[in-house]
């Protein structure tokens, strides 16, 4: 068993990797190396890192379009993620998915989904299969407060509860569905309360405190592996940057952002464990990030002749 300090160092390093990776994405986006939509995880690192530490390699993960944090925390190679955003063939989705659709078979990372709540029914099916085949592994599904207002949230929660499926629903409540604040989306803004109507066990946790998130996730995963799934965790968190790269953030005040920045998950962790060797991790991570950029720069473009490859499987088998 790792001591708290060892875990804290690991948490810090993982969160810092996400933070610096995302900052590099901003730079590369404004240099037009990355195109399309780019949704940054800066501020929410504690949720992705905290939950991933509770999982085992066999478990399956489904995320949303704001997925870089989950993908990095799940162990997908930063080089392959950056190459994906450069649209290169060496990317984890051959350059076909981009920032919003990272896939990795080995990490059992079943992608970001750009349809809000689109992945919830998939998670239900993944867990149903595991239960039917009596496999002892769980499925984790990340989604935001916006998804909670979708019909598929209701349908999926009901099915998961009805069939007692091994699913961990993780709601990253960052208070805004793009430009619509929580109170303009939900009659009941305490989202964890909604789980009760499906008799699903729910925890509400400080999404800026990585240790709190990890603790809740461990408890939930333990319950699920014991057959008492599904479990719902609402992480109260906040994104420090705009919804995406082209957003003037008219819907929130600068002071509110500054207020939340005071509880930066990296800062909170460092205040609790001041002897974390920050510089060591900064240098280590700077190297990783530069390697990722070089890998992406040198990546190749998928030949246009392969455009139709993998529309159907026989191409895939070749």
């Amino acid at each position, binding site marked *: 068993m790792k001591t708290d300090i060892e875990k804290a160092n690991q948490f810090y390093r993982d969160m810092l990797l996400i933070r610096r990776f995302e*900052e590099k994405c901003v*730079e590369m*986006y*404004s240099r037009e190396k990355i195109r*399309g939509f780019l949704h940054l995880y800066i501020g929410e690192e504690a949720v992705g890192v905290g939950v991933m530490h509770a999982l085992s390699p066999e478990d399956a993960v489904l995320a949303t379009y704001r997925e870089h944090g989950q993908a990095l925390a799940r162990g997908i190679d930063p080089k392959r993620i950056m190459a994906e955003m450069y649209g290169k063939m060496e990317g984890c989705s051959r350059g076909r998915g981009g920032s919003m659709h990272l896939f990795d078979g080995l990490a059992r990372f079943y992608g970001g989904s750009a349809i809000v709540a689109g992945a919830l029914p998939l998670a239900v099916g993944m867990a149903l299969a595991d239960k039917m085949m009596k496999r002892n592994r769980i499925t984790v599904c990340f989604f935001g407060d916006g998804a909670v207002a979708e019909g598929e949230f209701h349908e999926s929660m009901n099915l998961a509860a009805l069939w007692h499926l091994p699913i961990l629903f993780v709601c990253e409540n960052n208070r805004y569905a793009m430009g619509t604040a929580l109170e303009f989306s939900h009659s009941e803004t305490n989202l964890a309360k909604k789980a009760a109507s499906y008799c699903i066990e729910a925890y509400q946790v400080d999404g800026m405190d990585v240790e709190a998130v990890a603790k809740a996730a461990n408890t939930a995963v333990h319950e699920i592996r014991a057959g008492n799934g599904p479990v719902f965790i609402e992480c109260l968190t906040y994104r420090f940057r705009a919804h995406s*790269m082209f957003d*003037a953030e008219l819907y929130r005040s600068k002071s509110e952002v500054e207020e939340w920045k005071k509880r930066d998950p990296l800062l909170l962790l460092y205040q609790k464990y001041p002897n974390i060797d920050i510089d060591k991790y900064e240098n280590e991570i700077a190297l990783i990030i530069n390697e990722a950029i070089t890998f992406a720069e040198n990546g190749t*473009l998928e030949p*246009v002749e392969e*455009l139709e490859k993998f529309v159907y499987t026989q191409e895939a088998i070749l």
Partner: protein
Amino acid sequence: MSTFVMPSLGADMESAVLMEWKVKEGDRVAKGDVIAEVETSKGVIEIEVFEEGIVEKLLVEEETECDVGSTLAIIRTEGEVTPAETPAKSLPEPVIEVDHVDPSIDKAPEPYAGERIKASPAARRKAKEMGIDLFSLAAAGEALHLSQVESSAPTEKNETSGMRQAIARAMSRSNAEIPHYYLGTSINMTPALHWLEEENKKRSIQERILPAALLIRAVVLSLKSVPELNGFWENDTSHLKAEINPGIAIALRHEGLITPALLNAETMNLDQTMRSLDDLITRTREGKLRNTEITQQTITITNLGDLGVQSVYGVIYPPQVALVGLGRIIDAPWAEGDALCVRKVMQATLAGDHRATDGRTGAKFLDKLNDLLQHPEELL
């Protein structure tokens, strides 16, 4: 020294108005510092700098619109170059054809089977309205278009320009694709013509045989012993044909040449050759040719002898592999033994497709032709 440019915040952003500088010249900036506020279509957005350094020069006044990528300021960096970027290599913009062409279109139009003339529905209906038989217009392999039918209406000036166009296309394709070789020889025609005159004395004028028929008969028999010249060249292989359908060059007054096929000439004797040749020429002039006569030639014979041309070097009609040219029969000096005399002499030439046959085959053919014409009785 590095330049600070207006960043692109989205594919649909072309420019923005620099509203307010957040730094002054001489200020030190750190990575991620906000350097200015810009007004975009979505509202005011803070833009940040990505290197440490000192603001050397602010190049743009506030409230001015700047395109994405235009230089806004100069920043003096302490010798720090962004290591990761390999400046030399700029990725070529990949050309991706957005409107993917359906592969099925590229497939050559269906190779039409046997009896059917390829003609657009519009051409087909127009031909019916004008009572024109499509067969008279078609040229091997080319689809007939409305314009060709319309222009073939029996108005005076360009009666068969449709046909001319089709032949022109075939000729240019031939020149482009077929590596021709040419061979020629002079043939003493006196024995053959003398023999023919004797034969014609035994026949009424209705059954009279013309030299053209004799020559065609000789070519057909020569092809029996040199079959490689009789057939098609398609998808890189030669297809020899059992039947010999020589395309005969027939002049349509004022409109040039058409080469309908004398079908199955190998089954005819000399008299039958003359009769079917006469019938073919008559039907050609009346525009009543059958489709197979338009499309199934296995070789072509041009005998422009009538019009006073001594030797003819023709262009092969694809997909055939050979063309025989027979020149005008003229009185010319001819050595026999050591004596010099005057004989009726004809130039015979052969154009061959070097992919299908070589000069040796061509020479064997001309030699056989000459030999047969020296023993005309074999041509009966």
